[in-house]
């Protein structure tokens, strides 16, 4: 299935502004070109400080590129890209339901529609039973699910994931990654997932890119839609993992 283009980054560069007069700018991203189709899930792997989060911040509009263009080619709602932050950003004074409803505040929906959307996303992420709990009362895995439900409730065209699974143990993470992949594919939502973990990247995405020395290079592409446990244990997976690891060292 050939999907239409949803996001296009062409020649995007980003440098940190000078802290002091006379100091040279520190270039973090240089000439990034990336095309993301609708419903496509891509991962960006890289070491700490390689610019992965900066790339997401540029797509989300939190920062402005030094040069180049970021074009959002389709926007079906008010929000083009919803971000799941590494720190999650759940509001401690709101329960899970209210946190998810925050994603709908700027949308023109009735209270009944809002309730339906929030409950649907809580069900999808398996956190309906915890809807009245405050973030402090939730485990790490449940918090991640609430944060993802909030982003999905906003019905974005692109979901941006900034290492949201890094604090989870493998069993919880594997299930969450598989569940989320299924949801994104069924709703035709694109995703950009940044991580330093090649296993997470290969399990979650259709294409894996490596970000090294400010440049983005595709290192792995696979067409396997159903990423079963057999795939994770296969030789092909091990080979791809090695490829990704080599590219980010």
């Amino acid at each position, binding site marked *: 299935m050939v999907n239409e283009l949803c996001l296009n980054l062409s020649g995007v560069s980003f440098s940190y502004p000078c802290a002091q007069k006379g100091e040279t700018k520190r270039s973090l991203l240089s000439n990034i070109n990336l095309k993301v189709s609708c419903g496509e899930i891509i991962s960006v792997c890289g070491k700490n400080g390689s610019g992965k989060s900066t790339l997401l911040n540029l797509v*989300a509009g939190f920062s402005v590129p030094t040069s180049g263009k970021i074009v959002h080619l389709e926007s079906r709602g008010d*929000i083009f890209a919803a971000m799941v*932050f590494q*720190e999650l*950003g759940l*509001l401690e*004074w709101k329960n899970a339901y209210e946190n998810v409803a925050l994603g709908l505040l700027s949308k023109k929906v009735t209270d009944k529609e809002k309730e339906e959307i929030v409950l649907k996303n809580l069900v999808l992420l398996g956190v309906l039973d915890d809807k009245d709990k405050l973030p*402090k*009362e939730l485990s790490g895995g449940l918090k991640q699910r609430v944060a993802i439900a909030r982003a999905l409730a906003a019905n974005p065209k692109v979901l941006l994931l900034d290492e949201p699974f890094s604090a989870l143990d493998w069993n919880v993470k594997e299930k969450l990654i598989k569940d989320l992949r299924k949801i994104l594919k069924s709703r035709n939502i694109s995703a950009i997932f940044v991580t330093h973990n090649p296993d997470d990247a290969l399990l979650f995405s259709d294409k894996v890119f490596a970000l090294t020395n400010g440049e983005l290079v595709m290192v792995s592409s696979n067409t396997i839609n159903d990423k079963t446990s057999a795939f994770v244990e296969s030789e092909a997976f091990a080979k791809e993992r090695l490829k990704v690891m080599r590219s980010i060292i």
Partner: protein
Amino acid sequence: MVEKHLLKWMGAVFAAILFISIWATFAMLFNSFIFPGPLEVFESLITLIFTGEIFPHILATLNRAIIGFLLGLILGSTLGYLTGMNKYIDAVLKPIIELLRPIPPIAWIPLAILWFGIGDASAFFIIFLASFFPVFTSVYFGVTSLPIVCERVSKNYSLTFSQKFVHIVFPFSVPYLINGCKTAIGWAWMCVIAAEIIASSQGLGYFIEINRFSLNTSSVISAMLIIGVIGLILQKVIQVIETKLTSWRSVSHGE
């Protein structure tokens, strides 16, 4: 839990007995006009309460303290939020407020008398100043401490200024606001007495001053005890409000 409460009460009773014993010992060393003993003060306190003589003064002082505090709270928090949330207002207002903040509220009393005369208006002005700065500073600090991720959540979901304020900034800053209120009410209560001693014709400060002139030291100390108890009650009231408004901070952690 019961043991903890028992220990707290026993500690308080012991402290009270120790305090009264030291007081009684010192009182024996001086003339009762200069340093009356606990029994004399207690008698004076009972008389003041049963004759009702003290109540108009308590009401006048409370009235001034609460109105002045509320004025300081309203203006201090409003400007604190505006300054913390808007860089242009911050650039203009912050230097002015930083310049005025270190001036003790009591230093304004001569000017207050000059501008408003002896009476309620001067006291309101002094108490307003005493409350304004702690509230402003706490709120400003709270708003500017908002984590960057909360700012980004607000931006990511395209929240309007009012939505951001209602759902993110205000709830986050409530603990800071309450802290500011605790300091402000303490200052307001201290300053109202000082203002009344100098520039008033009714109130606990005025009551202390006229009884000092007539060498009625027992009444002076009785009024001081009443001031202490009311100050404690005001702090407790703010603590109760704090518990209600920030209950989310005390929930237990998940696994």
